[in-house]
């Protein structure tokens, strides 16, 4: 069970001495070696072109966020609630980006390297504004202010362009939903969500006005969508999940079939995006919505 070869004190010391050369995998020369303990922070760092040496829950990033793509370099720190501190200490990053919600339980990160505790979760219910701030802040911390400024202005330009495209078409309220496997419930996004704010930027009305949780999402039965019968439904699935499966199981559901937008064929598939994500997720969503609505 235990590899006996690494046990001598000398070999361990030698191994430790040899480490710095072996560990400069990520980033351009001169860039700090950073660690990110939360999905949105990882996403923003990757968008700024600086892959972290270690990131929280890499498999979850690939499954949920996916944009920008995660390179193979970063070490996986494990669950977001419990990033592996011993591993982090072993990797000795120069700077750690952690979410402020993690501070209560992971204050000990400060013993490993300087930590920037950042709000990844918008307490004011404005996640897009927060995503802009986050990009600029992380950019400044790692000496990539210019890249950050470019990303921010590109995003704003993309939203402007989307708004112009959509202004010509018919104005319709839009639901953004993700269907659950049970064929009866869906996740829908409203007040306080990245979807809501992105919609405001690109000039689309969000059809969901019901309650939503801290992240702006809600799990409801499909019949609740009847509150806006004139809406368009954009449905997305998670990365790696076939969106057709859910629609197929819904096609046997009489309640669903009775909804006007189903009868009129106004249910349009949308490319995957992360509804609790940062700036790249918002831009991806904006583009996808334009594509879906104009194709309609």
């Amino acid at each position: 069970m235990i590899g006996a070869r690494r046990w001598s004190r000398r070999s361990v010391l030698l191994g430790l001495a040899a480490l710095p050369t072996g560990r400069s995998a990520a980033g351009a020369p001169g860039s700090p070696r950073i660690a990110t303990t939360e999905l949105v922070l990882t996403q923003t760092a990757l968008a700024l072109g600086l892959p972290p040496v270690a990131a929280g829950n890499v498999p979850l990033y690939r499954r949920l966020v996916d944009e920008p793509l995660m390179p193979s370099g970063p070490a996986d720190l494990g669950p977001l609630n419990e990033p592996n501190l011993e591993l982090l200490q072993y990797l000795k990053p120069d700077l750690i980006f952690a979410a402020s919600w993690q501070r209560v339980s992971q204050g000990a990160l400060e013993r490993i390297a300087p930590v920037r505790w950042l709000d990844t979760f918008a307490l004011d219910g404005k996640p897009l504004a927060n995503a802009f701030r986050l990009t600029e802040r992380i950019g400044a911390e790692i000496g990539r202010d210019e890249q950050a400024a470019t990303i921010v202005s590109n995003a704003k330009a993309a939203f402007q362009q989307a708004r112009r495209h959509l202004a010509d078409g018919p104005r319709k309220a839009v639901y953004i939903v993700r269907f659950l496997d049970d064929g009866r419930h869906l996740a829908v996004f409203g007040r306080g969500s990245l979807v809501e704010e992105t919609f405001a930027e690109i000039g689309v009305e969000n059809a969901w006005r019901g309650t939503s949780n801290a992240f702006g999402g809600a799990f409801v039965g499909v019949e609740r969508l009847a509150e806006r019968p004139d809406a368009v439904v954009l449905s997305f699935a998670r990365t790696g999940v076939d969106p057709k499966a859910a629609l197929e199981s819904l096609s046997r559901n009489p309640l669903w079939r009775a909804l006007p937008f189903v009868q009129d064929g106004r249910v349009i598939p949308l490319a995957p995006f992360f509804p609790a994500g940062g700036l790249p997720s918002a831009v991806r969503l904006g583009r996808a919505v334009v594509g879906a609505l104009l194709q309609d």
Partner: protein
Amino acid sequence: MAGRREVGIRAEVAGPAMLAAALVASAVALFILNLSLVPAGLLAETVKVYGIAPRFAVGLLCGGTLGLAGALFQQVLRNPLAEPGTLGVFAGAQLALTAAALWLPALAQFGSAAVAFCGSILAAALVFGMSARRGFTPIAVILAGMIASIYLSAANAMLSLFNHQVLEDLYIWQAGSLVQNDWRGAAMASASLVLAGLVSGFLVRPLGLLELGDEGARGLGVRLAAIRSTSLGLAIAMTATVASVAGPIGFIGLLSPMLARAAGARRAGARIFWSAAIGSGLLACADQSLALIRPIADVPTGAVVAAIGAPASLLLLRRMRPVEAAFVAGVPRQFEASPRTVIAALLVALTVTVFVGLSLGRTPDGWFWSLGEYLPWRGARVAVSAAAGILLAYAGVLLQRLTGNAMASPELLGVSSGAALGLVGVALLATELDRLTVAAGAIAGAGTAICALFTLGRRSAYAPEHMVLAGVMLTALLGAVSSVILASGDPRAGMLLQWLAGSTYRATFDDAVWASTMAGIALVTVPLLARPLTILPLGAGFTQSLGMSVPIARVLLLALASLATAIATLVVGPLSFVGILAPHAARMIGLTTARLHLIGAMMIGVALMVFADWIGRMAAYPWQIPAGLMGSLLGGVFVTLVLGRRRFG
């Protein structure tokens, strides 16, 4: 003679029939109210025909199915503990859904009902496999079911902890929802109920004969193994249908047979029939009431049923005579060695475990020893694990000696769950969570649980079944509360999961000092406890004649046990099995006098918890499996192997 018999039968029908009729009538009234409250509009008719009506039907059918299955389980296993959830059916369904969501999203095209059904059948097959060799004797089936439940739930807790952002999709199912959009669920449930009803018609006579005991039934030509496996298989298939249509709905299967019996149904046939009828009314009634308040509070049916069902079953239980003691009285010592040698050996084992826990670790490049730079991370975790091990073993010895009950332990009696409930309550209500507030919550919870437990237990002379059933109920209550929190999308859900899994990750130096102080206090009390713990089990009369006040000694010991459990639960969560494992293990290796029993159990507790914490940090590196979960996996093996084997092997 014939006349009296007729009167008896009439009384047997009147009571349960009236109860069932009252329940079903209220359910119908609520259903009509719900129909009339549908807002006029586009979908009004469709919602009535495909939403509200099938939901009512599913409530009746699933309730009936659970009532029938519960009565079958209790009849076959001759145990009021037996209910569909006890045999791991729901835990299996849940694990299947979790695994499918994580690794096989393609399965979604078959629908989650099919996945849940397969999962429950697999879990039941596991339980069957484990108990087949012993001819499906009640104790073998119940132990196998408990173990299967523990393992499947632990696996599920681990996956949820690591991926709860992905698995939030399942929380609606997990909390038990009867929401319907068509008649498919109702069709499935009615087919299963009709079929099961027919088959149980044939089983009534042999099942009635089981009440004569194994020998008597065999003498009358009953093939015990065949009857037991057929009835259990039937009940499991029925429960699996409910799991796939509505999710885990606990306590209906437990309460309905109890209510049928309390209302006067005595014979097997009557009990099975009326249990189904009562279950039907019970679930439909509860679900329709919740549908009514949905605009104000959208709470999941399964969780609410469990939250109400747990205390209700406890109250009903008080009226019941304990059935035969189904659990073993204790484990005899396994070998002869002088206590001095045994203690010395334990000391060596303990030192090695603690040393390894502190110094052996992993990096991406392999294993290595280090006592230097990583000590601050490991030290606190090892210290709190050790303290929790001491405190749980201490509480376990106290409870076992006090009740003379081999299954008594903080975990199985639900004292840990009580502490956990107290802590969850504090976490949700209090604005500031300092150590004292948190500890006060846990202590209040554990204290309340232990008081309830012993008030209940006194009537039945601490009958094992009553005590363990009370524990099962408190644990179910905890499960219901956490389901509601998870389903609500509360941002604290992640933290709650982590804590309930018994993670030592957050342990700080201060925590270590605090927990060690408590463990130290426990150690200091050992010499003081030796006398009462030796004398009390000998009986009240004997104790008093030796000049000791029984009530005072009892209350004192109970207070100590709940205090120790509360502190340990703060550190490693409510899950670990150290509190049952350590006292038994100490006795098995020959430490039988009160003082040695306590000391040996504490040493074993330390070694176990520290080992559980270490293996949890190493096994899935860099991911860390919480010590509490790891402990329950280790403890589960012990409970099956030792307690199951001693009497029946």
